[in-house]
């Protein structure tokens, strides 16, 4: 059986947390689910529940990446460049630019 591989990308602080929750929801449904926090501004520090969600996602072979060092350090996210993200997207069955871009 081929499993779906899904990547959600977030470019707005307001929808990042829900977007990660959405990725977790797909991982629970037996998909490989990834999230990527792009751009500035800097994220807020995860609360305990949000940090647990990230751990659960990783336990299910998913992950959350970020394109800025500040966001990676703040919330223990995996660093990724736009070029690396693009290559990763080529492996995905579903690519989801999530929510809106905040100007």
């Amino acid at each position, binding site marked *: 059986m081929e499993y779906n591989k899904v990547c959600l990308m977030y470019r707005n602080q307001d929808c990042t947390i829900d*977007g990660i929750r*959405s990725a977790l929801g797909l991982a629970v449904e037996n998909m490989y689910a990834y999230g990527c926090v792009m751009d500035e501004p800097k994220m807020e520090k995860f609360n305990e529940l949000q940090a647990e969600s990230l751990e659960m996602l990783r336990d299910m072979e998913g992950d959350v990446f970020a394109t800025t060092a500040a966001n990676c350090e703040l919330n223990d996210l995996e660093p990724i460049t736009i070029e690396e993200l693009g290559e990763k997207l080529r492996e995905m069955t579903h690519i989801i630019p999530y*929510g809106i871009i905040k100007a």
Partner: protein
Amino acid sequence: MSKSLGIFVTNPDQFKHVMGITKAAKAKCSKVKVFFSWDATHNAKKEAGFPELCKIADDVSICVDSYKNMGYDINDIPEGLEEKAMATQAQHGIIIEDYDCYLSL
């Protein structure tokens, strides 16, 4: 037989496209499922066309956790929806797994 189409909506400003695409797909006898999450759950209360969308599409549901987070009472079920359509992210999984074509808006 037309392909089936699942639409995952996370942007609250895309409702006219949700309607337009759903109408066009139904005109081709496609089976259409729409799931609203996060900010887009505002559409269920603020878009006058939402009840019509529920009639046109084969299946419309919203993320009840998102709806609550947007400040709504989960017992205040939007016009056009039944209680069972106040759902979880599993609906997104169904769209990905069971529908031929996928669109996020």
